[in-house]
C-alpha cells in the first residue's frame, strides 16, 4: 500500500460522514430554498428568488439572535473564567476531579427538563416570592429576555468552562512565580501572563457557545414564553407550523451565511490578537 493509498483510506470514514451528514443535507436545503411552498404545505420544485426576497420578514429574528448570542457568550465567559481559573490554578489537585465532575453532572439530565426547572425557579412562586420577603415586590423574571439569558448561561456554561480550564491547567505555574519575583503585582501578572496564555481556551469556548447559540430555539421558547424569537424559533415554526419548507430553507441558508461571516471575522480578530505571540496557537 502506498502512502497515498493509506492516506485516502484514513480519510475515507470522515469523508463519507461529511458527505452524507453535511454536504448532502446542505445541498438539499440549498435546492429547497429556490423552490416554492406547495398549496397545502411542503415543497414544489421551482427556480425562484422569491424566498430570499421575503427574508426581511424574519429580520427581527436575526436581530434578536445576533444580539442575544454574543451577549450570552459574553455572560457565559464572565462567569466561566473565574470558575475555570479557580479550578485550574487555585484548587488542590485532590479536589480537582470531583469539582470537574460536578461541572459536568447537569449534562446527565436533558436540557429540556433543566430548562423546565428554571420555569419554576424564575416563576412567581420561586425567586420573585423570595425577593418579596426582602421587600422587593412585584419582580417579574420568567418569560423575559433576562430569563432567556439566565437559561443560556446555565445551559452552555460547561462548554465555556472546559476549554478555559484546559488552557489554564497547561499554564506553567512557575511563570506566575517568576512574574511575582520580578515585581509584578497580582493584577499585572494576571493581565500580562495568565490572560494572554489562556486566550486559546477563551477563543475555543466562545466559538463553541456562540455557534450553538446562533441555532438555539428551546431556551427562548421555554424561558422567553414565546415572546423572544430567535432564528431557531423561526425555523421550527416554518417547518413544523406553516410547513413552508422553501422559505424555511432560505432562512437556514441565510443563517449559515451570517455564521460564516461572523465566525470568519472572529477568527481574523483572534489571529491578529495572538499574532504578536508565537507561543499561542488558535485551534
Amino acid at each position, binding site marked *: 500500500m502506498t502512502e497515498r493509498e493509506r492516506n485516502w483510506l484514513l480519510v475515507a470514514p470522515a469523508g463519507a460522514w461529511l458527505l452524507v451528514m453535511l454536504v448532502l443535507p446542505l445541498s438539499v436545503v440549498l435546492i429547497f430554498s429556490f423552490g416554492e*411552498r406547495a*398549496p*397545502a*404545505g*411542503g415543497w414544489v420544485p421551482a427556480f425562484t428568488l422569491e424566498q430570499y426576497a421575503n427574508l426581511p*420578514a*424574519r429580520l*427581527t*429574528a436575526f436581530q*434578536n439572535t445576533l444580539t442575544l448570542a454574543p451577549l450570552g457568550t459574553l455572560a457565559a465567559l464572565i462567569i466561566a473564567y473565574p470558575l475555570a481559573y479557580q479550578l485550574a490554578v487555585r484548587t488542590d489537585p485532590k479536589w480537582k476531579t470531583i469539582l470537574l465532575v460536578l461541572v459536568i453532572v447537569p449534562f446527565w439530565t436533558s436540557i429540556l427538563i433543566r430548562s423546565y426547572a428554571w*420555569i*419554576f425557579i424564575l*416563576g*412567581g*412562586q420561586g425567586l420573585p416570592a423570595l425577593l418579596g420577603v426582602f421587600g422587593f415586590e412585584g419582580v*417579574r423574571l*420568567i*418569560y423575559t429576555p433576562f430569563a432567556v439569558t439566565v437559561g443560556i448561561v446555565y445551559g452552555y456554561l460547561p462548554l465555556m468552562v472546559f476549554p478555559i480550564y484546559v488552557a489554564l491547567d497547561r499554564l506553567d505555574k512557575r511563570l506566575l512565580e517568576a512574574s511575582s519575583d520580578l515585581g509584578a503585582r497580582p493584577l499585572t501578572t494576571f493581565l500580562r501572563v495568565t490572560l494572554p496564555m489562556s486566550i486559546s481556551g477563551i477563543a475555543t469556548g466562545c466559538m463553541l457557545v456562540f455557534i450553538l447559540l446562533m441555532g438555539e430555539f428551546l431556551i427562548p421558547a421555554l424561558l422567553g*414564553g*414565546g*415572546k423572544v*424569537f430567535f432564528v431557531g*424559533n*423561526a425555523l421550527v*415554526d*416554518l*417547518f*413544523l*407550523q*406553516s*410547513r*413552508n419548507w422553501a422559505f424555511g430553507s432560505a432562512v437556514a441558508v441565510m443563517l449559515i451565511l451570517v455564521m460564516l461571516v461572523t465566525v470568519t471575522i472572529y477568527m481574523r480578530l483572534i489571529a491578529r490578537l495572538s499574532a504578536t505571540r508565537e507561543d499561542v496557537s488558535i485551534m
Partner: protein
Amino acid sequence: MKDRSYISKRKFMEELRRYEKGSVTRRHFLGVTGLGTATAVMAGAFPGLRPSSALAGSHIGDRVVLATWPNYHDPENFEIFTDQTGAFTQVNVFGSNEEMLAKLQAGGSGWDVYVPTNYTITTYVEEDLIEPLDLSKLPNYDPDAFDPRFADAGIVDGVVYAVPKNWGTTGIASNTSHNGGAAIDSWKDFFDRTMDDFSGRTMVHDYQLTTIGAALNYHGYSFNSVDEAELADAEKLLINVKPHLFAITSDYQPAMRSGDAWLTICWTGDGKQLNTDIPEIAFALGKEGGELWSDYYAIPKGAPHMEAAYALINFMLDPEVNAREVLAHGYPVADSRTNALLPEEILNDPILYPAAERLDALEFGAAATLTDPNRAELLARFKSA
C-alpha cells in the same frame, strides 16, 4: 404488592416480550416470572402460551404508536389494552394540528393511530395521508350513537376516514379574584383588559387558529377569516397587545396555577381541570363567538402496525373505556352510549356541556385556515415583533 413471589400480569407480559425479543436470557425470564418453578400452573392459566407467542390477540404485534394531544387519555386504559392484546401503546404528544400534518407530510412518522381535529381531515384526504377505515374491524363503532355535528367531519365523500374521539370549545379562562369575582366572557374584554389592568398577566396560544381567531372575534369577524383586510385588523390588535402579554404558549396551565398569569385562551378540558383544582379560575365562552371543535381517531397511510391500530381504536370506542377517558381528561364525547355511563354532574357541567344556544354562536375551524400561508405568516410576525 409486598409479596415477593407475586408478579403482575402486566409485568409478566413485559418480561415475556423482552424474552421473545431476546433482550433477556431464558434463565432471567424464568427467574423473574417464577416460571422456572411453576411452568405447569402458568400453562394452565395462559392456555395460549406457546413459545411462538400465540397469545390472545397477539397477532396484532407487540406495539401500537399513537400520536395525540397532551392530557388527553387515561393511562390506565393503555395498561388494560396491553393486558388484553399484548400490544404496548407508545404515545407521542403534539402541540398543534400543523405539527402533525408537517410530520406526516415529511413521511416516515411511524404512527399507527393519530388524533386529527375536524378541520384538517379533508386536507389529509387530498394529500393522500389518511387511510379509509375498514368498519368491519371496528365493531364498537356505532354511527347512530354519535351526534352527527361531531361525527360528520370524519366522513369525506361518503367514505369514513376518522371516528369521533372528543369534542370541545375554545374559550377564556380567567382568575376571577382579580376581577371582583366575575369571569371574563368576551374577546373584547379579553384584549382590552390585557392592555389595561391585566397587563403582563395574559397568555395566548402559540397556535394560529385560536390566537388569530380570537383577535378576529374581537373585531366581530369570523373566527376562520382569511380575508386580507380582516386579518390586517387582527394583526394590528395582536401587535398592540404583545407588549402586555405574559406569554405566547399553548402550555398555559402551569402559569395559571402558580398565579403568575390571570387570563388565557383555554380549551374545555384545561378549563375544567383548572376550575376543579382552583375554583376561582373560571372558564367562559367568548360572547362574540369562538371555536367549536371535534377530534377524531384516524390511521395514517402506511401505518406500520395496521392491525394494532384498528384494535386500539376499537378498544377506545368501547363505551366503558371511553367513559373512563372522559373522567380522566374532562373533554365531552359525542357518543350517547358513553354519556349514558357518565355521572349526572359531568353531563350537567356548564364547562363540558354548555347550553345549546351558546354552542350555536361558535364556529368549527375551516380547512382553509390550516393551509392559508397568510395566517401562518401573520402569527410569525406577531411572535417576532
